[in-house]
């Protein structure tokens, strides 16, 4: 029912220069590792990337950054990446920073057909500049609009052939909303199972949001390994 790819190059080959891409993950957790590696290979450029973070210098979205494939980055925190800083200071990349909750809600709105909503985050700050402000019950809120993408790249621990997905622990993060907000959603899954093997009550992303699936082994690099001091 869904297109099931066997090559990552194949899965991303339709992505054109200048496309807007949403990429799942928080830090390096829950990122579609192999889809990003394949994008580096294609060399597609002038991408607008919507993702909470921008990887680290040698992994995740950081690889696209190093390869100068990103024209604009939309996220909430990009502080883990020295190359990012260099490109911003050199004027080589545009950046739009959005409060994390607003980013999550704007992406959800994009997938859910809500063109705009009000939120308190950013009232009275530089984020509010040029935004419509409205009072509800005596408190001010900002109008924020929906975000959508040409392609959404996400990662799940398990998927079935109807595109139903399940995520693992905090690797869920932005992936479900991003799955719904992309015109074409490509899911990199750690395991692909037969239809019916994921319990219907336990599906995190219903298959209607997913157009393409591919199985990929994950490295799962750890950004800040912290171990209990005993």
């Amino acid at each position, binding site marked *: 029912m869904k297109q099931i790819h066997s090559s990552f190059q194949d899965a991303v080959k339709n992505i054109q220069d200048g496309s807007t891409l949403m990429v799942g993950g*928080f*830090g*390096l*957790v*829950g990122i579609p590792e192999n889809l990003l590696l394949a994008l580096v290979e294609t060399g597609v450029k002038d991408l607008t990337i919507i993702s*909470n973070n921008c990887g680290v210098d040698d992994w995740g979205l950081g690889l696209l950054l190093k390869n100068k494939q990103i024209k604009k980055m939309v*996220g*909430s*925190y*990009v*502080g*883990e990446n020295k190359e990012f*800083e260099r490109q*911003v*200071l050199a004027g080589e990349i545009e*950046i739009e*920073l959005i*409060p*994390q*909750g*607003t*980013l*999550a*809600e704007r*992406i*959800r709105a994009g997938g859910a057909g809500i063109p705009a909503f009000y*939120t*308190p*985050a*950013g*009232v*009275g*700050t*530089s*984020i509010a500049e040029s935004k419509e402000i409205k009072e509800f019950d005596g408190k001010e809120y900002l109008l924020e609009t929906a975000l959508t993408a040409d392609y959404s790249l996400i990662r799940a*621990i398990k998927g079935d052939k109807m595109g139903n997905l399940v*995520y*693992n*622990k*905090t*690797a*869920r*993060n*932005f*992936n*479900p*909303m991003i799955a719904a907000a992309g015109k074409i959603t490509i899911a990199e899954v750690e395991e692909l199972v037969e239809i019916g093997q994921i319990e219907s009550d336990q599906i*995190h992303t219903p298959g209607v949001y997913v157009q393409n699936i591919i199985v990929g082994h994950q490295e*799962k*690099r*750890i*950004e*800040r*390994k*912290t*171990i*209990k*001091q*005993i």
Partner: protein
Amino acid sequence: MSDKHLIRETIARRAEQEIESGFYVNLGIGMPTLVANYLQKDKQVVLQSENGLLGIGPFPTEDELDPDLINAGKETVTAIQGAAFFDSAESFGMIRGGHIDIAILGGMEVSKNGDLANWMIPGKMIKGMGGAMDLIHGAKRIIVIMEHLSKNGKHKIVNKCALPLTGKGVVDRIITERAVLDVTDNGLKLVEILDGSTISEIQAATEPNLIIEETLLNQ
């Protein structure tokens, strides 16, 4: 009290007292994370992490280490029994919707009317605000913990923030190594002295005029 470690411990221990049994708590990145180390064992507290976890547990042993399980500071953690995982939209719905009892955050500057600046310094690289701007409008009570003065001895508790704001009128209480101050409709109120300073010493280290809790005047 010059020792950095001791200062952080003093602040974290005092901040812990803000947390009641039964509370759902969000601890910001950095010093606020330390507060978890001092949580009294008899308190039932659930720690929320805005990347999608309700019920942060201790750091893992090498055996427990799971790359898919991190906190908002991107550190590997564990989850307690009864923890719940959810997506980022749900997580910030939980935060914005007033379901978190208290958020303890770090600060660069706090003004007398509760404005908070803690996300950028002009001229320095912008890293991003992460979830701070959502948290300060969502949690029922906002506590800022920070050193009373900057490294250069400058005021961090000010009449008006010089740094770009994270939010206006959002802070309920400030806890430093020296004092506990509440943001009230009439201005900043000194409610506790932590290090044995005199009121006038604390006033000197604080730009706004302080209202003094009556019990402190009688000491």
